[in-house]
């Protein structure tokens, strides 16, 4: 299929932001320099209409990342073929630089729960997820990135540390990793584990993207709301991550209580400054 857009890839030395509807006009008018724009794939599963028209308009000027929230890679249900078809059609339409999904489950018995639910880190779950990542990559004819999710509960059946589970999915399937630094912090705080453990476990070469976001502290633990600025301790963990990984395309995510575009641009500029002081990577993930 002939390309409809200029090929664009994220600049590893710069940050991008999540593209959200309230910012469409401001972003189009101001056209700030950004490494890339990321959208939730499912929000563009429509067959036509203004959302897709806007996305195609932005794709002409920016590299785009499709970040899925609904494929349910870890569900015991079969992968939904309609969902996979829609994702493939969207990828064909916008020619994204990156395609990612979450290492989680969100549906069972045909009912969709619409949340990123945690997996037990067992050999069974690992083998299951790997089969499905392979299925998705074969269908899309490209590698995807898989993201570590925030988890508010843990399972007694888990036998594999989270970082090793994520690293092993990448090793077995050839997929890349989308390292969410906020999630690493949230999980460590919620479960009393070491936030650096996932950095230790991952092969730096397989990390293709980093996410930053804000959480909310509640009496029952930290909740990954994507509704606040990045917290200082998460910035610190991000610096540590870059010290090990080198420059990785980084995204500032914001989903709840979405502020003015300037707030996201300020957060992205802060990430830019940290990226600038990190070295270039020895080699970059596929």
């Amino acid at each position, binding site marked *: 299929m002939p390309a409809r857009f200029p090929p664009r890839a994220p600049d590893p030395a710069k940050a991008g932001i999540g593209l959200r509807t309230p910012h469409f006009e401001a972003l189009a008018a101001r056209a700030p320099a950004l490494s890339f724009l990321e959208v*939730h794939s499912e929000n*563009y599963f429509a067959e036509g209409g*203004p*959302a897709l028209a*806007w996305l195609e308009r932005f794709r002409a000027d920016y590299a785009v990342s499709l970040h899925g*929230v609904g494929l349910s890679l870890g569900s015991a249900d079969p992968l939904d073929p309609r969902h996979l078809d829609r994702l493939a059609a969207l990828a064909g339409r916008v020619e994204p630089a990156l395609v990612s999904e979450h290492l989680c489950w969100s549906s069972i018995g045909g009912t969709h729960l619409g949340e990123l639910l945690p997996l037990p880190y067992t050999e069974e779950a690992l083998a299951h997820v790997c089969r499905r990542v392979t299925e998705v990559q074969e269908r899309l004819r490209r590698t995807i990135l898989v993201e570590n999710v925030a988890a508010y509960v843990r399972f007694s059946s888990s036998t594999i540390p989270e970082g090793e589970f994520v690293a092993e999915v990448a090793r077995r399937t050839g997929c890349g990793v989308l390292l969410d630094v906020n999630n690493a912090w949230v999980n460590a705080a919620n479960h009393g584990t070491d936030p650096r453990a996932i950095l230790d476990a991952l092969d730096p070469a397989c990390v293709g993207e980093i996410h930053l976001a804000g959480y*909310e502290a509640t009496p029952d633990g930290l*909740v990954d709301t994507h509704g606040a600025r990045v917290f200082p301790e998460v910035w610190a963990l991000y610096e540590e991550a870059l010290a090990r990984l080198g420059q990785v395309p980084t995204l500032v995510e914001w989903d*709840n209580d979405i502020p003015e575009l300037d707030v996201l641009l300020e957060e992205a500029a802060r990430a830019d400054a940290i990226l600038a002081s990190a070295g270039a990577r020895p080699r970059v993930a596929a």
Partner: protein
Amino acid sequence: MNSKRALIRSALAGVIALGLGQAQAQTSGAHDGQPAGGKEKCYGIAKAGQNDCGTATHACAGQARKDNAPDEWKYVARGTCTKLGGKLKPPGGK
């Protein structure tokens, strides 16, 4: 039937005249939808997508809701329907 066919013919002639008129207007640039002065073309108004990956917490403050017997009084509609509820005529106007 002949009058119906004539009606169809004239209706289609109207559609075609309209279509050809639109095509002419576009080639002459009269209404091509491109605003002057380099302003952004309008892409329409997109609704905010409902899929995201942040956990909603605005409802988390209280305890989890229990499915006890519902308090029926709570489910009396209280919005702007009070501005029309009693006035609407039932279908058929009877």
